[in-house]
């Protein structure tokens, strides 16, 4: 029995950012459940040796180095086959995944193959009397639901970005053991043929370095109404950004999107106009120093992370703010 964290590498090398957060969550869960901490790294055997050794040097008791040439490029079929075999061998009590696009693609299938379910997108966990519960959001963040796994198999959870603070690499931790695990995977099992990742066009807007951002969401209603937000941004010398639905509709280019599928920003001031605040948006702007939100719905989840919550009609408030700012110039 252990808490097994499935680590994910970043495309550019090193760890995927959420991997280190998942490791921190796994470490806490292991301590509270009084279980040893284990981790798994998947990939082609040569590519993962260094990272497996690194984990063993920072307090992970058992590091499973899951190597196979067919794991070099991610496929759901390859990862499900490898992890099902690893779980049968390692018999963990908990398996913790980072909630990445890749995990979303394979972890539900893995759970199904094991006749079980995955508690996905977890933002908090709680252990009391030796039982663990996991919190995930419902209704775009308007409610928190606490889940408890009741199956006989291992409890599978994926943790949302920004919900658990990644530890600094603990080089002083007790040295762990690296175990080689060679799953049996047949090329015929892999039913998808993935191509090389590509970008459509170079990003021309770097929201990541912007000091002031005015961001607009669904509440703006229609494209013509964007004018009032553009004028506010201009008056503040701010970059204009948006939540996903605005970019989906083609009202602003995709590169102005803030959130888990867009850019991650950390400005001094973030003004959220008509944005409800679904978790996918919040993970992209949690790093803002001051958050000012304008929304007509007093229960909008954006207000939970706001320093200033303006509850009212954005079509009245936004132009009035712009006028007041201009009047002072």
């Amino acid at each position: 029995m252990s808490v097994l964290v499935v680590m994910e590498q970043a495309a550019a090398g090193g760890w995927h950012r959420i991997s280190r957060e998942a490791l921190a969550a796994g470490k806490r869960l292991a301590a509270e459940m009084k279980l040893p901490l284990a981790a798994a790294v998947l990939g082609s055997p040569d590519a993962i040796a260094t990272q497996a050794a690194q984990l063993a040097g920072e307090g992970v008791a058992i590091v499973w180095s899951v190597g196979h040439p067919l794991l070099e490029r991610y496929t759901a079929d390859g990862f499900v086959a490898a992890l099902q075999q690893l779980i049968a061998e390692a018999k963990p009590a908990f398996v913790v995944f980072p909630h990445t696009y890749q995990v979303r693609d394979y972890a539900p299938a893995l759970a199904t193959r094991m006749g079980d379910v995955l508690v996905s997108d977890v933002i908090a966990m709680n252990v009391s009397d030796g039982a663990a519960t996991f919190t995930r959001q419902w209704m775009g963040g308007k409610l928190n639901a606490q889940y408890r796994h009741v199956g006989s198999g291992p409890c599978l959870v994926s943790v949302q970005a920004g919900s658990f603070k990644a530890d600094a690499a603990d080089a002083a931790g007790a040295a762990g053991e690296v175990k080689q695990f060679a799953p049996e995977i047949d090329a015929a099992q892999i039913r998808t043929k993935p191509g090389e990742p590509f970008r459509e066009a170079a990003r021309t807007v770097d929201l990541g370095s912007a000091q002031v951002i005015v961001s607009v969401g669904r509440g703006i209603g229609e494209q013509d109404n964007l004018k009032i937000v553009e004028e506010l941004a201009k008056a503040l010398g701010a970059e204009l950004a948006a939540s996903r639905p605005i970019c989906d509709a083609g009202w602003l280019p995709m590169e102005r999107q803030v959130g888990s599928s867009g850019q991650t920003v950390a400005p001094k001031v973030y003004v959220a106009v008509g944005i409800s605040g679904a978790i996918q948006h919040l993970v992209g702007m949690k790093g803002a120093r001051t958050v000012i939100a304008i929304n007509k719905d007093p229960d909008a989840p954006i207000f939970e992370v706001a320093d200033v919550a303006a509850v009212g009609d954005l079509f009245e408030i936004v132009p009035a703010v712009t006028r007041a700012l201009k009047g002072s110039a």
Partner: protein
Amino acid sequence: MKIVVAVKQVPERDAPVRVASDGRGVDAGDAWTMNEPDAYALEEALQLKERLGEGEVVVLSAGPERAESTLREALAKGADRALHIVTPEDGTGSLTERDTLGVAQMLADAVRGESPDLVLTGLQSDDLGAGQTGVVLAELLGLPHVTLVLSVEASAGAKQIRVKRELEDGWFQQIELRLPALLTIQSGGNRLRYATLMGIKRARSKETKQVEAAAATARHDEIVRVAIPERTRQTEILSGAADQIAAKLAERLKVEVGI
């Protein structure tokens, strides 16, 4: 090409949400709509059929009687027929009594009877947001799958398709796979259509077949408690007249931004 699109009926986005009296569910009122990510899946199916110039789009939903209005909406937009797995609204056998695996099992039973070339669904639901049903359904059906798909390239009679998948940080990837297959569709790859008056009229003569839901199996995950989230920051709340709110906001912004 025969395409099944699995859609869910969810509470309308702006509908007020309360914790149910038992503290373990949602009291969502009575304003319901098609889950928006599923609307993108339906749109992709309709466009695919239009591009190929042949095929059938079957829309599938599991839920109580009220879910029929969502199926009607899909028929009005252009789906050819509908399959409704009818569950009780509450209690034994309702959607909330089933976990992701249980819901996907109901859908899988219905899809098997159709033997489609392609199964599409949204990448997640706007209510529970687990983002898993499509992948679990693929696994139960023994189909290959791709998630977060923005567009589908297919030709009539082809045994293989090519899809564009969204990766993180502005990256994409083309993936080839054989049919039959399941795809979960990401928003933004297409533009949603509205139902026309003609479409609504035509939908009246289209078939909606009701099938009774199989008995629910026990959940593997138990909902312990549902609650309104606690605020994590000290929030200054401004409400009242718009001009007063605006004046206070402008003052605060001048200080924070330094203008």
